[in-house]
């Protein structure tokens, strides 16, 4: 819907974000009326999925207690985990479905809102075809919900267009790992990190986006390991880097090819490993021949000596691990970047051993599990390709339909927005996704929303995107429905239900099951519990790469998580697979890993005379993604109230900017004005803005829609901009 049903500020007054600072009843109530139970579960935020105990009183989450026995984090938490409980019992919580009326949103019954949703979806599909409806999912959903959503799209609606906000997270790494290794998962468990002799962190702000991983890296250094960090900014872990490579945004590929050049030039490759366990080495060796350190240095802005040193440290170590995240992956060559990391690991034999490997640091809560079981546009459960006839046959059998009834691959998240613009997609049903804040080119997204004939949202808070909805179905928080997720290290863990959804809110699963029933597809959705959905997921995954068939809720609880693949072997005692590729066995049919050639090319938004500065975006430690949850938690907002633009003093001086000055940052899309943070911890040719906020404070007004051709990830990390000091000496913060 084009216009908001009420003025923006009216919606903010009614639906927030308001700030929650204290547990229900306040801190004094905690003492007077202690919690009646502790629920061992996991944090709802990032891909680390730290173990945590929630304090529960009646049907309310009222606090937290560290869970020191859970092996991954041993009680450690970041500020988001500590304060996550404040999202429960929050005054902004949606307690009823909402229907849009000319007077604004009005509270509706479930019958009204579900019937309206189904009627509109049917009308649009009858008029424009099944694929005129698209589904957006979220990577914070449990695997059961993700599986259900994938089945709902393909079986209940029959549309091929379902994709999810993991498209903004792991898809470049996932695509690269599948190409090279035949499977999409971090090959090593986190326990391997302290065992390495060299850790190479490239494009990963570990301290702020995966804080718990810091201790793993520090333990490696405690044991004498060396740390290399490549980033345009000195992120907090850089304080202890033994070698810092301050590369220009978007030049990771040049750095990595330069490093591989040095390894091969100096004959430091692991020839035996290459010969026995890989294919394609010669072509890759040829492709990096022209990438001498001087050429790499000219592009990256990193000294050639530092490139040589990094290459030597990694190649000469017995065990080296590379950690990478969105800095590497959020580029129009994100897949090539990851492939270049893999090429370096394979060439030096750093894979499939304790303390040796390359690891993607998944960012979203169930980023790993969410994509494995069916809400990714090209995958069926078990990490199966939707175009693979055998996969279609297996899944169709589990679903009780014919393989022909399963639609083919649909469009990815950003492409769905483009199809809405073109008028091909007319209706969108979105769960747990706030594209107005999280997708690039926010203006373009707002325009797309205005072209929809129907927009339905399932969520627990009214996000900025949900402001544009025709119907909002009040769904559930993570702590309100049982399920499993898969953490960044491939560990499948158990999310416990701590409380029931409050008011008239429903669990997400119930909403989809009820929609399916009203679409006349109830026989395919007969579930009455998360366990039933999970048992079907296990069957659907059986024999796939992400085989969960041997993982039960009970087995997870007994073992504090189980790493997939874990097939259902006789006796039920498969221990799971913490480390992949041991003995050099990869998941391709020939058992070998593939070197894949990478080509250098410019960013999709290149630097030019009128846009001479790099803009890169990212996160801060106290906020999570589009902030739908964390912008409502008072202490987390106080810690980082709004975006600032980080500028090096040399660049600031050129523009007469001092710390705190309002600065207008302009790209080829739009402009925004934010206060300056003048610091020596960023390259002078680069500025940085965190992206968690909406409206005038949205860094994604500035970013562009260039996608990686294979992974379809947007290039958030590289835009071209110019800056100027804005009039005025201070900046009013606008919500």
């Amino acid at each position, binding site marked *: 819907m084009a216009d908001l049903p009420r003025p923006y500020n009216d919606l903010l007054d009614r639906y927030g974000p308001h700030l929650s600072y204290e547990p229900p009843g306040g801190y004094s109530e905690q003492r007077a009326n202690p919690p009646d139970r502790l629920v061992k579960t996991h944090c709802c935020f990032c891909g680390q999925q730290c173990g945590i105990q929630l304090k529960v009183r009646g049907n309310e989450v009222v606090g937290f207690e560290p869970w020191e026995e859970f092996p991954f984090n041993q009680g450690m*938490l*970041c500020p988001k985990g500590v304060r996550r409980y404040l999202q429960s019992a929050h005054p902004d919580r949606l307690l009823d479905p909402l229907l849009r009326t000319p007077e604004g949103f009005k509270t509706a019954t479930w019958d009204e809102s579900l019937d309206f949703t189904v009627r509109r979806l049917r009308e649009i599909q009858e008029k424009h075809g099944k694929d005129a409806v698209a589904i957006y999912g979220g990577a914070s959903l449990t695997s059961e919900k993700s599986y259900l959503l994938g089945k709902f799209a393909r079986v209940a609606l029959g549309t091929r267009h379902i994709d999810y906000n993991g498209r903004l997270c792991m898809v470049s790494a996932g695509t690269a790992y599948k190409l090279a290794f035949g499977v999409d998962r971090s090959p090593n468990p986190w326990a391997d990190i302290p065992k390495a002799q060299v850790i190479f962190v490239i494009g990963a702000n570990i301290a702020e986006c995966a804080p718990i991983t810091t201790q793993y890296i520090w333990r490696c250094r405690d044991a004498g390991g060396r740390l290399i960090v490549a980033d345009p900014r000195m992120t907090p872990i850089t304080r202890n880097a033994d070698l810092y490579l301050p590369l220009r945004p978007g030049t990771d590929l040049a750095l990595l090819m330069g490093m591989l050049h040095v390894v091969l030039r100096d004959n430091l490759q692991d020839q035996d490993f290459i010969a026995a366990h890989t294919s394609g080495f010669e072509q890759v060796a040829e492709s990096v021949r022209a990438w001498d350190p001087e050429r790499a240095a000219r592009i990256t802005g990193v000294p050639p000596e530092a490139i040589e040193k990094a290459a030597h440290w990694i190649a000469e170590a017995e065990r080296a691990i590379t950690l990478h995240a969105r800095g590497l992956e959020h580029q129009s060559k994100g897949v090539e970047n990851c492939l270049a990391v893999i090429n370096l690991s394979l060439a030096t034999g750093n894979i499939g051993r304790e303390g040796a490997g390359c690891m993607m640091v998944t960012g979203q809560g169930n980023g790993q599990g969410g994509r494995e079981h069916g809400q990714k546009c090209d995958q069926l459960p078990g990490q199966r390709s939707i175009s693979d006839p055998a996969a279609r046959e297996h899944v169709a059998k589990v679903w009780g339909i014919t393989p022909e009834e399963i639609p083919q691959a649909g469009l990815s998240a950003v492409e769905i927005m483009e199809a809405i613009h073109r008028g091909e997609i007319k209706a969108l049903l979105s769960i747990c996704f706030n594209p107005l804040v999280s997708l690039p080119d926010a203006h373009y997204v707002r325009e797309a929303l205005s072209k929809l004939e129907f927009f339905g949202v399932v969520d627990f808070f009214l996000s900025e995107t949900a402001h544009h909805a025709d119907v909002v179905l009040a769904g559930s928080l993570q702590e309100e429905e049982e399920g499993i997720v898969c953490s960044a290290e491939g560990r499948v863990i158990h999310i416990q239900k701590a409380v029931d959804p409050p008011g008239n809110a429903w669990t997400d699963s119930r909403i989809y099951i009820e929609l399916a029933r009203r679409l006349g597809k109830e026989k395919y959705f007969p579930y009455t519990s998360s366990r039933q959905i999970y048992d079907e997921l296990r069957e659907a995954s059986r024999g796939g790469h992400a085989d969960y068939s041997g993982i039960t809720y009970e087995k997870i609880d007994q073992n504090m998580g189980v790493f997939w693949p874990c097939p259902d072997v006789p006796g039920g005692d498969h221990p799971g697979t913490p480390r992949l590729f041991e003995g050099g066995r990869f998941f391709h049919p020939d058992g070998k890993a593939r070197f894949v050639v990478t080509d250098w090319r410019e960013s999709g938004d290149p630097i030019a005379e009128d846009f001479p500065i790099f803009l890169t975006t990212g996160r801060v430690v106290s906020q999570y993604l589009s902030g739908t949850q964390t912008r409502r938690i008072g202490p987390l907002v106080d810690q980082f109230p709004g975006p600032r633009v980080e500028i090096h003093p040399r660049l600031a001086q050129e523009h007469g900017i001092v710390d705190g000055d309002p600065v207008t940052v302009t790209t080829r899309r739009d402009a925004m004005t934010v206060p300056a943070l003048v610091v020596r911890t960023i390259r002078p040719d680069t500025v940085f803005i965190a992206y968690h906020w909406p409206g005038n404070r949205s860094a994604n007004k500035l970013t562009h829609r260039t996608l990686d051709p294979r992974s379809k990830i947007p290039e958030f990390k590289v835009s071209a901009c110019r800056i100027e000091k804005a009039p005025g000496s201070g900046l009013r913060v606008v919500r």
Partner: protein
Amino acid sequence: MFGYEFYIDPERCIGCQACINACAECDTHRGVPMITVDFLDRANSIATVPAICMHCDDPTCAEVCPADAIKKGEDGVVQSALKPRCVACNNCVLACPFGIPKMMTKLELMMKCDMCYDRTSVGKRPMCATVCPSQALAYVTPETIARERREKPVNVFRFGNETVTTKVFMMVPPGETAVTVDVVDFMWETPETPETWR
């Protein structure tokens, strides 16, 4: 917790403030954190440092308190000021060599870290050290710290002529035996030094 000690290693700190948030969630002080994390010099560095009460063996804060409101327990933990006694005079705030005590003006009460007395007395680790994702704040046994860290713990601090020993340890490079902050401690002085040079 018997046999456990508190160790601070600022070099590990990533400035995430999990400690501040967790401290505020401790049942005893209801939303008010007793720990600070500061950038040393944000314009020039990302380095941050956490500060908690060092729990001095001979606490200056207690010595200068005119109301005898600050008590040290047998376990070596120096407690926050006692509400019925504290006169909010700020002597402790001014006298502490580490700059830890904070005057809660609204409450007319000095409050500071009491090493999670309610937790440690029942076998739990202090909130901040439990959650700290970099273990810049650690509450472990001396054997663990000796086994796992390259840096060495010291609890002797020299401020010019004054030496302070503390219950809490600071991790320093191997070979150091004390944290020395005053240039005087590095000087060579004799009574014969000419007056004009002093």
